[in-house]
Every structure is written in C-alpha cells, then in structure tokens.
C-alpha cells in the first residue's frame, strides 16, 4: 500500500481537465436526452408492447411472452406479405441499381449535350410524392387506362391486360413503379461518385485499348464499390418498408397477392380490429430483417 501524499489529497476536484469534460457533457446532454426520450424510449416501449395482448387500452403481457412472435409463423397473410416483399426486393433492387449505373455512366460523358436537362429528367420522378405517383400509376394501368390503350393501339397486345386484377401483372406494375420512382435517386449517388474518379485513369485505359464496356466493369464499378454498398443498403431497407405503393397502387390486392409487410402492419392496427401487440411484434421482425440483410451486405461489400 502506498500512502497518498498530502498534496494529492488536497488536490482540487475541478481540475482543468474535468472542467472541460464537464462542459463537453453539458453540451451533449440536451441532444442525447432528446434522442433517448423521443427515439430510444419509444423503441423500448414498442418492444414491450410487442410482448403484450388484449384491448388497446388494457394491454397485458402474453403467456408465454413471445406469443405474438410465435403467432406470425402460422399467419398466412403475414407469410404472404413477406413473400411479396422479398419478391419485390429480389427483382426490383438489382434492375434498378444496374439501370442507375448505366444512366450515370452515360450522363457522366463529358461530350454529351444537354447533360443537365437529361439529369433533371431522370431525377425528376423523385420530386413527386409517393402517394401522388401511385395514384397516377393506378390510373395509367386500369383496364381501360392509357397503358392498355397504347399497347393495343401499337399492336403489341391483341387484348387488354387486366393489370391490377391479376397477381402477376399487379406485381409487375408495382415493380415498374418502383423502378421509375427510384432509379434517378440512386443515379445521383453514382454520378457524384463518378465525379470523384480521376479522368486520367480513363484516358490511360483508352490508350491501353479498353472499350467503353471494359472501362465500366474494370474501372468505374470497382471504384464505386462503397457507393454501390450504400445505395443497395438504402434500397433494400426502403423496399422492406414499402408501404405507399401497396396501399395506393394495388390496395394489396388481388386477394392479398401484392400486400407488403408494412401495409399488413398498418391494416392490423388501423383498418382491422386494433391489435397493438401483434403489429409491434411484426415491426420488430422487419427491423431484424433489415439489420441482418445490412450486416450481410457490409460483410460482403466491404473489402478494405
């Protein structure tokens, strides 16, 4: 045991270091508290709710606690909604990202005229409201709508397709809508990433005899890897939470064949008999799915 010297005993509590760190904490606390109160606390509450059942104002804990989570496995509509959401995910995200890269590399061409105009045109769909564009797509794809009229008029179809009332075509319409709405948004990320690639690299490649396609696959895409990672995480995240299109474009129909997970959660809460506990439990399942998928992507995509 070493005895503390009298000098250190008398040392003042508020040293310079402590003062500074206290000041730091003072600056941090308000924001941190606000985040805790308005973001983390509700999340904890939501998790507790997901373990409860009963009338909305008289929720009690389930017996066993994970009952709501167990129920999901035997809920046909929920399983249908998961299948639908993953169908959108698997088909739509790759098509959209590939299109976005292609558009971005076309528009990154320095010799292209009216570049600004084209960029604006492709980005413009992102400025439309989700509900607004869904409603417009709904009108376009009705039985006597414009799409059928054009396809019939140009002789591509011999009889009209009932787009919104056949499971396959209804899904196609949603995917077309998503691609239209989000390609431009992702393209902007790729464009800004491409601006950061040194132009001389391309010049060197051209001197070595690389064609346009090789330049894209050998230079652009590898150098864009971090951005591809970000956009795909964002797209997957967004698709898993897809809501507006399912509600407004197809109303989840025909026969729940296009309903998404978020739409089903909304129905459980607001159109059907309110079941807070079950809805909260399903939201947490989505959270876990997003987390797992993002983690996989980070692992696969991050090769630094």
């Amino acid at each position: 045991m070493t005895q503390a010297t009298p000098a250190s005993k008398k040392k003042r509590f508020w040293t310079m270091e402590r003062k500074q760190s206290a000041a730091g904490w003072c600056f941090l606390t308000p924001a941190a508290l606000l985040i805790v109160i308005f973001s983390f606390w509700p999340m904890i509450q939501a998790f507790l709710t997901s373990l409860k059942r009963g009338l909305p104002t008289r929720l009690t804990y389930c017996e066993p606690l994970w009952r709501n989570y167990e129920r999901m496995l035997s809920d046909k509509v929920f399983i249908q909604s998961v299948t639908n959401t993953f169908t959108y995910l698997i088909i739509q995200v790759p098509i959209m990202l590939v299109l976005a890269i292609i558009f971005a590399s076309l528009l990154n061409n320095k010799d292209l005229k009216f570049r600004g105009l084209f960029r604006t045109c492709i980005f413009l769909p992102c400025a439309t409201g989700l509900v607004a564009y869904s409603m417009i797509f709904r009108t376009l794809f009705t039985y006597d709508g414009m799409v059928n009229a054009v396809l019939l008029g140009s002789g591509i179809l011999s009889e009209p397709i009932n787009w919104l009332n056949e499971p396959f075509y209804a899904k196609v319409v949603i995917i077309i809508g998503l691609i239209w709405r989000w390609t431009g948004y992702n393209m902007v990320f790729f464009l800004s990433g491409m601006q950061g690639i040194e132009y001389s690299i391309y010049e060197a490649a051209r001197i070595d005899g690389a064609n346009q396609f090789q330049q894209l696959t050998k230079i652009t895409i590898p150098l864009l890897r971090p951005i591809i990672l970000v956009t795909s995480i964002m797209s997957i995240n967004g698709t898993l939470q897809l809501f507006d299109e399912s509600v407004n474009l197809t109303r989840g129909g025909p026969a729940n064949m296009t309903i998404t997970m978020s739409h089903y959660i909304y129905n459980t809460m607001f159109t059907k008999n309110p079941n807070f506990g079950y809805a909260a439990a399903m939201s947490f399942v989505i959270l876990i799915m997003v987390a797992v998928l993002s983690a996989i992507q980070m692992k696969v995509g991050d090769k630094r």
Partner: protein
Amino acid sequence: MKKLVSLFLILTMILSCTAALAAEDGKITIWTWDPNFNIAAMNVAKEMYNKDHPDVEIIIEEVLSEDVETRVITAASAGDISNLPDIMLIQDNSAQKFILSYPEVYADITGKYDFTDFAEGKLAYSIVDGKNYGVPFDAGTTVGTYRTDYLEAAGYTIDDMTDIDWDRFLEIGRDVKAKTGMPMLSAQAGAVDTVLIMMQSCGASMFNEDGSVNFTNSDVCKTVLEYYKTMVQEGILIEVNTWDEYCGTLSNGSVVGTINGCWILGTIMGVEDQSGKWALTNIPKLPGIETATNYSNNGGSSWVFTNGTDIDLALDFMQAYRNVDFYNEILPTTSAIATWAPAKEGSNYTAGNDFYSGDAIFAKIVDYTAKVPANQTGAFYYDAREALGTALTNYINGADLESELANAEDTVNFAMGF
C-alpha cells in the same frame, strides 16, 4: 428574447384552452367530415336549435372519417379523452369495433334518448351488449335502380324487377345481355359489398350470435357466393378495379343498373342528362332461404357521444333527429335519407322526384329501411370482410369454394385469437 417568452406563454395558454373541448362547458363540439352531407345536416340542426336556445354555442369541425378514428385511438391510448368532441360521427361498420375496443370513450345513452320509430336494422349497428351508443344519421338502405330505356329495349319494365328473386334476376339478366349486350350490374373487384348486401337481405351476416365467424356453416354465404360467381362468369355483373371505374359504368351508361346503398343516388342523379331514364325498386331476394327478404343495407353512419361530456345538452340538441321538419329540410341539399319512419311524411319525401320520372323515391326508401334485417358487425367486421374478399377473388378464379371459405374462416379466427 422577451418577445419569444411571451409568445411561448401565449401559445401554451391557447393550447390549454382548446384542450377543454369535451368538458362540461355548455358548448357542443361536433366532429364530422362531409361539407355537402353530414356537416350540412348538422348546420341545419344547429340553426334549428339556436332558434330556441340562442345561448348555446355549437361548434362543427370538419374532421375526416379516418382522422376521427385515429384521434380516438390516440386519445384513448394516452388515457385522456378530454380532447374529444361531445358528438362525433362514426361509420356504422366501425361502430362496434370502436365501442368494444375503447369502451371508456363512448357514452351509453340507453334510456336517455327516445329510439322509437328508428329502423331496428339501423340501430343495431351502434348497440353493444343491448346498450344504445348511437343516434342514426343516414340510411344505407339498398335499392335496385335501373335504366328504364335499357330494360325497355329488352322488353322489361321496372315492375318486372320488383319483388323478384335472384333466379328471376339471372333470367332477365341473360335476356337483357342477349338482346342489348349490356351487363346488369357492376362491382369493384375484391370488394364484397354486393355479397354482404345479399347476405344481409336474409338476415345473415359474417358472424353468429355469439360473435364467432360464420362462413363454412352458412348456407346463405355459400349460395350468395355461387350466385355472384355465376353473374361474373356470364357477364351479368362486370368487375372493375376502382371505385371511380364503378361510378363511371353508371354515368357513362355501360351497365343497366346497380344494387347499392341509397347514397349512390347522389352519383346517379349527378348526371343530369340521364334524367327520366332511371327507375328505382327493391332488390332481388335469395331463393330457397326462409328468412330471405327484398331489403338490405350497405354503409351509413351514426352519431356517438363522448363519455363525461355535456351529454344531456348534446342529446337535447340531437332531438332534431326526431323531427320531421329537420329531415325534410336536409333532404334536398344533402340527400341524406332518414331512418326515422315518421320522416317520410315530410313534403320533400312525398313529392315526386323529377329525375325518377315523378316517383316519390325517398318515401319509398324510408319504407324499405323499416324492413331491413339487422346485421351482426362486431369488432372483427373488417377482418372478416377482407378474408371474405380474398376467398371470393380466389373462388372466381377457379379455387374450390369450401376450402377457400375454410381458409377465410381460419384467417378471421386467427385474428380473433389475439
């Protein structure tokens, strides 16, 4: 800085003032949603009431139906219902769900209001455990309304459509289709309005008396779905995707007629150049079912009251809904049809309607309303409705009826076991 502080103080004062909406304050606040319909009706009631009680302040606020529901959920979940108004309008189909889920919100008005002469089928929507919670607003009584010019072209009159059963309707439908190429009816795909209208006309609903779901054991339900499928397959009923398309089939004359709640008359009479071409009658009944009638209901709404508010004052104000003059005055502007039988004595009810070639359609509808069988809605009405819609869609596309109904029943039972 001082200005900011005082602004903040003023804001808190305003907030705390408006928070006392439903308190016992001698004011009546009302939430309702349609300026041309229920708001207009309440404005008439307000004027009538203020003539005798000039000191009572009545505030009518426009709040959309979905927003009323969301606000009730929020207020009840927070445990503070003082922000709710004294009177709100609720969709009949949602009424039981909300009263059962949030019993502390709604006031039991049994014995405080005289319900004699209101149609029983209508009152049933807002009765829970034998207690009255609502005062009816408008009728959703179903009518069969057809284009007489199309019927005549096939050699029929409106009398041929009156008091018939669905077999006769199919016969006429096939004949009309053969002669004019016209489908009789149109409906929104996946929506079960027509199916539920047919079921309720037999006094059957999606639930048993004890609240359990009733699809697989219900002969009425199966018969109705079979008739519906036959009509779709033979092109007597065409399915469209959206509500707008459905309204379109009526206004552009691509169907002979429609069977729906009487509120559809607003849409039909909105097309003025079709005046004189329409006629109105009751709906076909299901053959082979003992309880079958020619009357049913689809839609409609009722007024409900917030607990612990100026209930006596609010109910005194609601006496307008037992007043012939009130119903008479709101009819021409709103087309809201009474469910209170004496209302049909009003001059606007007995007068002939020009659009319907001088027929006194509104008095007719009040008569129908009194004959509508009651319906069980319950808390799981929308769960069942959606499940039945899924079953119907799959059945029309060729799936087996029994197994689809069993599936639907499973889905609803699943929701009930929450």
